[in-house]
């Protein structure tokens, strides 16, 4: 548990992706089985304990520590698990528990024994281990390392053992594995072949599209492509196999629990790719409606009824056990249509193909997407196999032109990692009728490194107040902000939020009084 606690502390504080991968890889290399497997499960969110709650932590702490000192310390630290980890009186006779021991104990011992077990574990551990232990058993490990990052580190780990394994290869077998992952380590260290995921409802890494830019458009050969609407929902993968059914997000997260109304959506074994949308009377609702269904571990019946879901299908990866990914798009599309015809459903439909004859015609169709509240177009080569990742030239996403507003910079915040010495995140606002400037969003991209240097200097020279890493600045700098859509939101004082805001241009020339008004933005809200 000592190495695991140290890893967690470093992952939490390390901003760089490559550095996180290096930390994970070293951990996999140095930690013994089965501890590293259980640790991997904890890191990827596959382990969750609910037996221990904050109340239990408080209970065991109060039995050992003067309550006034505990209270003063908690006021200072602000986090109960951390306070108890630090304040627990040291006793060194025992050794800290291993991750394996923790898992086995929590699974086997009755709840009533938990306070005693926890106290003896805390007795045997140093402060960092105590912290990791408390976070682990209360299910609140947040380390800033995604499951995808862990899989990338696993692929690098395999490379160090002379194995050619891509992160996607790990992804393909991942959901068929269970901790502590003996078969995975055997494979990555070259003792056996890849684990057999046959029959398990595993995730298949999705194929992604490149943004279409002006140069790409000029080279586009219209007759080689199919076009679809670009739907503004979330990408999902529906999987059914003899071993069960799952709904995965684009990031390989099992999100089945959040969408009980999609349980049993696939009547036969298959892997389908599509977009999750809220659809009422055949009309796609704005993204804000879908947001009501996201980031929930479970869904209340009321919410389910108010925001009905539909999966709009793009593609078929498996029909039964048959892997269709090597087939060209047109062939897969025919299989998808046939599959849906065989298994009609009220919860799924097809993403329609758009008829067009030329690039010019496509340009005209795209120009109408904003009026139709559609995010843009998808262009897919007719002969494209289904390739994981973002291969160039096969699939293009061609978003409608963004909307823009001229907004005034109000606050700036330091960035992360390489940008930590720069004020690179800007909160900007618009003028309200009463003359007050109200924040509407935040942008941290869209400018060059040279522009960033100039922005940073401007922020430093025009700061009126500093709150930790945040600076309030004088009115004076106008940004042209591009964004995909505006929607109502309670998050900002202005009542409006932007989708994908980024800096389009620095308007050093524009007087700040002439920046846009909030009403202008409100008029841009769709639906």
């Amino acid at each position: 548990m000592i190495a695991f606690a140290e890893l967690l502390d470093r992952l939490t504080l390390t901003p760089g992706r490559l550095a996180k991968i290096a930390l994970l890889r070293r951990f996999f290399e140095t930690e013994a089985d089965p501890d590293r497997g259980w640790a991997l499960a904890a890191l990827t969110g596959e382990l969750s304990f609910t037996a221990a709650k904050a109340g239990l932590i408080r209970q065991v702490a109060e039995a050992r520590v003067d309550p006034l000192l505990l209270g003063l310390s908690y006021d200072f630290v602000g986090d109960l698990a951390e306070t108890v980890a630090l304040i627990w009186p040291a006793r060194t006779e025992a050794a800290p528990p291993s991750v394996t021991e923790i898992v086995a104990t929590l699974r086997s011992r009755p709840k009533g024994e938990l306070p005693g077990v926890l106290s003896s574990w805390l007795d045997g551990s140093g402060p960092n281990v105590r912290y990791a232990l408390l976070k682990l058993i209360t299910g609140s490990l947040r380390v800033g390392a995604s499951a995808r990052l862990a899989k990338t580190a696993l692929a690098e780990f395999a490379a160090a053992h002379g194995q050619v394994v891509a992160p996607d290869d790990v992804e393909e077998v991942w959901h068929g594995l269970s901790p502590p992952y003996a078969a995975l380590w055997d494979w990555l260290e070259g003792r056996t072949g890849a684990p057999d995921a046959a029959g398990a409802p595993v995730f298949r890494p999705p194929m992604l599209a490149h943004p279409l830019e002006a140069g790409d458009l000029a080279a586009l050969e219209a007759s080689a492509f199919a076009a679809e609407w670009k739907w503004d929902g979330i990408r999902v993968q529906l999987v059914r196999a003899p071993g069960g059914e799952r709904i995965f997000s684009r990031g390989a997260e099992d999100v089945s629990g959040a969408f009980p109304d999609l349980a049993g959506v696939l009547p036969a074994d298959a892997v389908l790719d599509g977009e999750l949308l809220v659809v009422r009377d055949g009309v796609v609702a704005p993204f804000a409606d879908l947001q009501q269904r996201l980031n929930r571990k479970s869904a209340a019946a009321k919410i389910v009824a108010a925001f009905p879901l539909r999966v709009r299908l793009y593609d078929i990866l498996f029909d039964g056990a048959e892997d269709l990914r090597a087939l060209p798009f047109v062939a897969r599309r025919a299989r998808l249509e046939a599959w849906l015809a065989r298994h009609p459903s009220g919860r799924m439909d097809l993403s329609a193909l758009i008829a067009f004859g030329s690039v010019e015609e496509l340009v005209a169709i795209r120009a109408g997407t904003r009026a139709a509240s559609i995010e843009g177009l998808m262009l897919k080569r007719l002969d494209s196999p289904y390739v994981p990742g973002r291969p160039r030239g096969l699939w293009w996403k061609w978003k409608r032109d963004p909307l823009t507003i001229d907004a005034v910079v109000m606050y700036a915040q330091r960035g992360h990692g390489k940008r930590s010495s720069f004020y690179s995140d800007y909160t900007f606002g618009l003028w309200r009728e009463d003359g007050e400037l109200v924040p509407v969003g935040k942008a941290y991209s869209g400018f060059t490194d040279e522009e960033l240097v100039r922005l940073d200097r401007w922020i430093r020279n025009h700061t009126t107040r500093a709150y930790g890493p945040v600076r309030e600045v004088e009115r004076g700098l106008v940004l042209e902000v591009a964004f995909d859509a505006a929607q109502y939101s309670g998050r900002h004082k202005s009542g409006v939020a932007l989708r994908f805001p980024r800096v389009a241009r620095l308007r050093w020339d524009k007087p700040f009084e002439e920046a846009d008004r909030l009403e202008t933005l409100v008029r841009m809200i769709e639906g």
Partner: protein
Amino acid sequence: MPHPDTWLCVRPEGLYCRPGEFYIDPLVAVERAIITHAHADHARSGHQAVLATAETLAIMDVRMGEGRSGVSQQVLVPGEVVEMGGVRVWVQPAGHVLGSAQVAMEFAGSRAVVSGDYKRAADPTCAPFVPIACDVFVTEATFALPIFVHPPAIGEARKLIASVALFPERSHVVGCYALGKAQRLIALLREAGWDAPIYLHGALMPLCAAYERLGVRLGALRAATGEARERLAGAIVLAPPSAIADRWARRLADPVTCLASGWMTVRQRARAKGVELPLVISDHADWPELLQTLDDVGAPEVWVTHGAEEALLHAIALSGRKGRALRLLGYGDDGLEEAA
């Protein structure tokens, strides 16, 4: 036998010994000042007469300019008694930074000791704390909460070296206060086997040189400013805390931001400062050291100066002693927290 609270009192200028007519660590320039150590919140300039250890006087000269600490300067030698207005005064090491001293005062049969800042953990760059039995002990309380249990500092130095091995292509920039922390960290790194040159921000160089002159060996030190980025890959660079995440650090090779401070015990502090590798290295006593010291000096009465008084006063009461908060203002604030 007059109780020390009849002859030792708090005035707006600071703690004052009435019969001896001197202040200890006054906040403004005064007639006569005894200075416990040269940290900026304890050592101000421009006194008439200033009394301190030879090291503290030398360091004040470096920080303020030669002769700026006071018109006349008197060296206090640890253990040697000086008489002032019937008060017997002497100093003993406080183990905080080089030259740091506690001030012991005896008047009409009662004895008070003002510790200044102190720690009990080993430090190769300064003399260890010497407990002095007394009737009233005046203690600091910077880390006076039971959450503060500083780990052995050498382990933190090893942690830093291990991180350099893991990221050999990156610079490790460590924020550390210029007086005491920087030199202790350097000495710890040497003890842990780091023989390579250590790079310094310009603000740290004069005091490192002063330590060397005062007999503390620090090994090869180089200026980080002006050094080529490639040379700084895999190097350890020391800088003031304010510089580590600011423009100055852009010259370094993809730096790992580290901070050496007792506050790094608390994760939220590390997170808020954007610290990637916190190093818990403190100049101040942690909670067990504070309690141990009260036992060692055996004073029936303890006065608490700057820091978390409430928790320490509670512990003092639990131990059957009498406690009092002095509420001296002006210490440990205005950004000097980083010094801890």
